[in-house]
Structure formats: C-alpha cells, structure tokens
C-alpha cells in the first residue's frame, strides 16, 4: 500500500480550478518532488494534501482517506513546512520545537516528559539543541530552516511535506538541508513530498518526479524520464540542455538566447 496516494485530486482557488485530476502515489520511505513552472499548482497541491485546502478526489494516507481524519489525527501523520514559516521573533528555539507536540496534547493539558524528550531528540537530530535558548529572531537562514524541520520532526509524522524548502538558502545550505532530509527519511522511514524549483536538485534527491503543467500532470516518473530537454522547453518555455552526471542523473543547464552583440561591425 502506498504511503500517499492521490486519486484525481482537484483544487479550486476562489472558484478557479488550479489543480486538476492529479493522480500519483509515493511508496513508504520514498521522496516525491513536485516540479513545474510558476503558477502550475505545486504549492496548492501540497497545501491540499496537508489538509489546508478543500479538494476533490481522494488523498489517502496508507489507504485512509484524509477527509475521514480529524485535524489532530492528520497532524500526527503529516507535518507541513510552508515556504515562509512564521517564526515568532521572541520565542526560543526550544519552545518552538516543542510546538510540534501540539497534536499529541489534550485541550487542557501541557507537554509532558515524553513530549519534551521527543522534542529534544528532534532538536538534537537537526543540531539546533545547542542553541535551544536563543530567540528565533537571532537565527541565520540555515539555522531557521533546521529549527522548522526540528519542529516538523517533533510531530513524529509519517509524511513530511516541504514547500520549496531551499528557496531562501544559498547553494551550500540547500545541499545541507536536502542531505539532512534524505538522511531522515532513510533513518526514520519518513515519506517526503517536496515542491522544488531547481530541476537538477529535484532529480538528484527525489526518486520520483511529478511535473505539473497548468494544474495537470504533464509527466511523472523517475528523473531521466521527466527531465528531458523537449519536455522542459515545452512546459517551461525555456532553453535548456540536459546532460548526465556521473551517476546518470540528469543535469539541467539553462542556455541563454541569441546574443545581440552591440560591438560587432
């Protein structure tokens, strides 16, 4: 049974269909990257899976329709990291990570010893425990992203949804964060679904890609099947060259158009 299965999922925003008839599946422990041009519906699809937007069709987690789950039950299975998480300036890192335990707490209850233990472990895993007492406002971009991931991990989810997890990071920190996510899914059997802007990166980390084109699935499969120069130039209206790295993964290189050489005679 798939960890996550979408069956003819559609989402409307203000009455306009933004995602249409998307069907795809991810195996447990797999990494699915949702790619596509701006406005193709990547984030909308992810938000629908997270339960933030109503949708048509079915989203099933390990065979269970998410609509049959209460918000708290869903939050124990799915952690969602938005593209721009809200980090309360004066909250400490430790307090923030502990928020990940919210779906496990009763309405009147507070976090217990087990909750603190899980949160501490998550903070350790992402190497933010050593600055647990610092205010969130003082963190660098990479540290913030790790703190947010630690909070998501404290939810002990089965499925981790990351919306453009690397958009605010430089190339080194991008790789660090994605390596970390990869490590987590192998160590904890997490299933990962990300939207990713960078096509080469998507091909390097995800084991399956879904290319959205105007809300519909334009192509899906392993990286070499989806990341072809023909498909990319058609969907993105871009000029690219696709080569392979030493492990056979596609490398997408943008090519600039005809040069207007003003100095030529």
């Amino acid at each position, binding site marked *: 049974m798939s960890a996550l299965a979408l069956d003819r999922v559609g989402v409307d925003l203000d009455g306009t269909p933004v995602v249409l008839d998307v069907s795809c599946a991810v195996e447990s422990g797999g990494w699915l990257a949702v790619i596509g041009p701006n406005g193709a519906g990547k984030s909308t699809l992810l938000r629908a899976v997270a339960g*933030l937007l109503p949708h048509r069709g079915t989203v099933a987690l390990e065979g269970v329709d998410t609509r049959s789950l209460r918000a708290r039950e869903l939050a124990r299975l799915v952690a969602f990291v938005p593209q721009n998480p*809200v980090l*309360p300036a004066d*909250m400490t890192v430790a307090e923030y990570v502990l928020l990940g335990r919210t*779906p496990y707490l009763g309405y009147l209850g507070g976090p217990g010893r087990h909750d603190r233990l899980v949160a501490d472990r998550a903070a350790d895993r992402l190497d933010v425990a050593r600055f647990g007492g610092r205010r969130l*406002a003082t963190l660098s971009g990479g540290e913030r992203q790790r703190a947010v991931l630690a909070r998501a991990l404290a*939810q002990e989810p089965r499925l981790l949804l990351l919306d453009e997890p690397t958009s605010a990071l430089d190339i080194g920190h991008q790789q660090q964060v994605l390596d970390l996510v990869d490590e987590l899914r192998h160590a904890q059997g997490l299933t990962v679904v990300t939207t990713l802007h960078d096509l080469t990166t998507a091909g390097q980390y995800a084991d399956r890609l879904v290319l959205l084109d105007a809300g519909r699935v334009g192509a899906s499969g392993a990286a070499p099947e989806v990341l072809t120069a023909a498909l990319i130039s058609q969907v993105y209206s871009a000029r690219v060259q696709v080569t392979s790295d030493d492990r056979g993964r596609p490398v997408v290189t943008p090519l600039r158009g005809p040069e207007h050489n003003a100095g030529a005679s």
Partner: protein
Amino acid sequence: MSASRRTVRAYGTAVAFLAAAVLVSALVGAADLNPWATVAALLDRLPFIDLHAGLGPLDRAVLFQIRMPRIVLGALVGGLLSLAGAGYQGVFRNPLVDSGLLGASAGAGLGATVAIVYLGGIGPEAVPVAAFVGSLAGVAVAYAAGAAGGPGTATLLLAGLATGMFLTAIQTLVLQRSTQDIQQVYSWLLGSLATADWHQVVEILPYAGVSTLIVLVHGRHLDVLSVGDEEARTLGMSPGRVRLLVVAACALAAATAVAVSGLIGFVGIIVPHAVRRLAGSSYRVVLPLAMLFGAGFLVLADTLARTVLAPGELPIGVVTALIGCPVFVLILRTTRSVRT
C-alpha cells in the same frame, strides 16, 4: 533549566510587587495607621496566622472598610485589564492592542452614558450594568462585523476600530443633547475606584473567575497561534475556535473591570510588555504574570490617584494614561529596533 529559573524568579518578583503595592496603599492616606500594627492586622486575616494587631476600632474600620475593599477591587480590575490585554495580544499577534479593543471601551462608554442620561430614575446601579452590557455588545458587534469580512485578524481589528468610532459617535450625540450630565459622564469615563466597597468585590468575583479561568487555560493555545493560523491548523489546532473563546473571555474580563471602574487605559498594554521583558514571550507564563503585575500596578496607580491632590482625587484613568503614554512610546521604539 535557566528558562524555568527565570520563570520562578519572575513569579517571586510579581508576588513581592503585589504585596508591596498592597502594603503601601494600605498605609497611605488621610488617617495615619501604625505600619507594624497594619501589617499585623493584615497578616492576621491570612489563614493559619493568628496575630494580635493592636489597631484601634477606628483604624480597623479605616483599614478594612475603606482602604482594603478599594485595594482589592483595584487589584481585581488591574489583573483583569492586564489579562484581557495580554489575551488579545496573543489572539491578534500584536503587542500593541489593549483591553479596550474591538469596541469594548466605546461600548462601555455608550452604555454608561445612556444609563446616566436616560436611566437615572433606576438608581446608580444601572451604570455598571449598562457599561458591562455595552462593553460586551461592542465586542460582539465588532466580532460579527469582522467575521463577515472573512477570516484573519487584520479584518477583525479594523472592524473593531470602525465599531468603536461608531459607538463613540452615538455616545457623543447622546451627551451633546444633555449637557447637564456631562460632568457625571466624564467622571465615569475617566475611571475611578472611589466608590469601592466589599459588595462590589463580591459582585464581580464570579465574572472575574470564569473569564480568568478560560483565558489562563488557553495560554498554550496562544503560543501555538503565534506561528499563524495556517501552521496552527497543520499542528491540529482550530484557530477560529480558540480565537472566539479567548476573545469572549477577554471581553468578559474587560467588561467586568470597566463596570466597576470606568475606562482605564494602557494597563493592558504596558503590563504584559513589561512581563515579556522579564519572563519571555510564552503566554503560559505571560498571562498569569500579567494578572499579578497588573493588580499591583493598578493598586499603586490608585494610591497616586487618591493622594496627589488629597483631599481631592485624580481620575485613575488619567494617572494610568500619564504613566502609560510615555511607556507606550518607549515600547514602540524598542519593538521597532527588535524588528529591524
């Protein structure tokens, strides 16, 4: 580890501050009470403590029938206003909102004015009841208007602003048509605890208790809400329900305070702000600490109100505004420097 030590120290400071405020207020006034005898008489009232105070019958009456009811009522009012301010700040994720928000003050002002101008025949009891009802009605109208404009806190704040201006306009109209009541209306609007007695204390206790309990229970929920509605939902929380419950309880707390004291501003802003400086930003700690510090602050402010112009009195709302305005400006400056 250090965070919890910080919390313990903050609670210790809060209790000491409140105790000191009560003591100062009990000792200051027209009648000169012997400090040691006063302390002994107060301690004697605590459970398990039996002391012979040595206060004469007249001094006892001054302490227990005049000063203490006013101190206790002031402490309750200050605690409720600070709690409501802190609660609203959590709901709206904005440290600059006050307990008079969402049409609460304007509604209370209109209610009290209508009672003074038109319901004078019923007797003075009509004023606090009308202020209480007006305050709650103001918040209800603002909430309904804001909810109609869609989800989110900005709409709600704007709806509150519009409601407040509308209610104030009506109140001004009522007042303008009956100028003979202006002085009485204004003395109510500016706030006073001069008529405090034990009866008032007992009357507001149930409302104070219920609203306090509901707000305090939601401290953790307000912490979750600080990451925004959307992320709070992905953590399994229902932001709309929490917001409605906390706003309702804060409105009840503020209306209870306003009913017995008139309009007292700034307490709900500056006290929670000071508490955050002292004990961090978690609402689980900020809410109870704001109550304790707010109680002490208002007792001290009222002591100033009744002594500075003795035997006359300053309106307590003027005292809190004179202290609160400069502090508010200070908060604006420091908050901005944190944000950038």
